């Protein structure tokens, strides 16, 4: 009835049709959020269809949310938390990964398992003790308190991830400089770390997104509105501006823009990173 060629053509058409429909369906919430974010309240309330295509594009909603509602402040707060956390966790986890990848010692496997298990536990198990500990060392309601926790908690995944990468490094690359008398720390810093740049980049992208998206730990460790990150800012906005859909919508778009740009720019890294450990935060 059909020859191979026409079968393939049908298959191809089927693929494009089905894929387009599927992606369009899946992204409806995001498209709707964007439409809402550029409408005036009159337009949203006036037409029966709150979700219709915008008649006039009010991009000044964004400016309003950014400055008068204070989204700009929240975004900056998130950056101040996220960047040091990512850097800190990369440095510490690469040290641990180096030890676990290149040295045979008794507790090696056990420590690896500890790092892996730690990244999967329910956060609730840490909440009260971390809350109390942070309070007792005087870091409650400070950025440092949240940053230190993020660094520590993300060590599990990062160590696991980097150790897997380090183990693929040909051993001769590590062995040769040793024979020439290089110290172990120099091998770590001048040979392994430069080699690991692509995987460090992949990890940085993933960690950036995860820490950026965190809500729980800022909720527990930060009380003052002045320090709150964008995720909490958004949750707060829901309380104050619940019926100003255009404001909350443009707030959401602002909150998602940086991780989104990061993802689109470093997609390949992102996806490969997600599958290495097959775990997300």
């Amino acid at each position, binding site marked *: 009835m059909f020859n191979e060629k026409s079968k393939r053509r049908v298959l191809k058409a089927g693929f494009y049709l089905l894929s387009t429909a599927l992606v369009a369906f899946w992204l409806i919430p995001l498209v709707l959020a964007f439409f809402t974010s550029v409408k005036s309240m009159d337009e949203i309330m006036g037409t029966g269809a709150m979700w219709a295509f915008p008649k006039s594009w009010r991009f000044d909603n964004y400016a309003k949310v950014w400055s008068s509602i204070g989204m700009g402040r929240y975004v900056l707060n998130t950056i101040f938390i996220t960047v040091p956390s990512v850097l800190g966790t990369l440095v510490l986890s690469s040290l641990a990964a180096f030890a676990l990848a290149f040295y045979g010692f008794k507790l090696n496997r056990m420590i690896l398992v500890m790092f892996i298990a730690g990244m999967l536990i329910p956060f609730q198990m840490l909440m009260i003790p971390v809350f109390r500990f942070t309070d007792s060392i005087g870091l409650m309601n400070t950025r440092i308190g949240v940053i230190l926790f993020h660094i520590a908690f993300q060590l599990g995944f990062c160590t696991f991830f980097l150790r897997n990468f380090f183990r693929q490094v040909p051993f001769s690359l590590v062995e040769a400089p040793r024979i020439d008398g290089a110290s172990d720390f120099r091998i770590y810093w001048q040979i392994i770390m430069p080699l690991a740049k692509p995987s460090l980049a992949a990890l940085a992208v993933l960690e950036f997104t995860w820490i950026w998206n965190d*809500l729980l730990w800022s909720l527990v460790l930060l009380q003052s509105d002045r320090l709150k990150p964008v995720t909490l800012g958004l949750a707060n906005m829901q309380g104050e501006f619940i019926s100003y859909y255009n404001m909350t919508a443009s707030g959401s778009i602002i909150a998602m823009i940086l991780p989104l740009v990061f993802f689109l720019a470093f997609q390949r890294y992102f996806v490969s990173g997600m599958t290495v450990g097959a775990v*997300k935060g």
Partner: protein
Amino acid sequence: MTKAVFKKGWWVPWSFLALPLAVYLIWVYIPIIQSFGYAFTKRDSLLYKTVYIGFDNFARMFQDKQFFVALKNNLVWLLYFVLVPIPLGLFIAMLFNNSFKGNRIYKTLFYLPMTLSFAIIGTIWMWIYNPDAGFLNMILRSTGLSDLARPWLGDSRFMTGALVAVGVWRQVPYIMILYLAGLQSVPVELVEAALIDGASWWQRFTRVILPVLAPATIVSITISIIDSLRAFDIIYVMTNTKARAAEVLASYMYTSSFQYQDYGYGSAIAVIQFLITLSFILVYINRTLKAEQESGL
């Protein structure tokens, strides 16, 4: 494990490990042990001190209706997180895993929800569920299904379902990625051929493709279960943890501890949540180490 061994002082690896390990112990492992400890205590408001009360918190839990509401909801989360994202993610991965032009764009677009925080996702879905002007009810009304339109987040019968749907929306792309990675070990032609030969399609799928994907399936199921047991952000953002009927263990723990200042009881709930999760964590670790041995690393 035998591959790389530096022979020098025993202390060399420990000098690299000392700082990260100390940080990890302080912020992760010591807190786990402390939580176990807190679970056996209670804050005595008259004496102004914390007293040891044995298993009382756990005994109280078994008579606490709200605890069982949370437990039941967690079970609903777990079931949906396994039953929907696994087959759907597999299907979509098979669909996108082909040699046609542009399939990368589809993958990228489909993956977008994974990069968003629950704070954003929750905010957006709040309007989808809005009873009057929300998208869902609007669609239902305009397609003549007005009877199905309801206040999704205002009715205790549908609340959990509505929240889980949001979680699933974000989980499916993740599972798709895991399966796409798994499909790397199946030649694209094989999958496509399986699609073309209508008659033997099912056979090839079950006899060739599924067995190859078995490791990806195990990881996907384990991770989905662990994620479902950790669900908190969606519930916090979309109900502000005020809707008791939608509570899960994680949010009940949070409200007990931070709204009712009942740290002992909160810790006991966390311990139960931890113990349920632990078995799946062990499956995951076992799987990971086994895969590593097989790959010879």
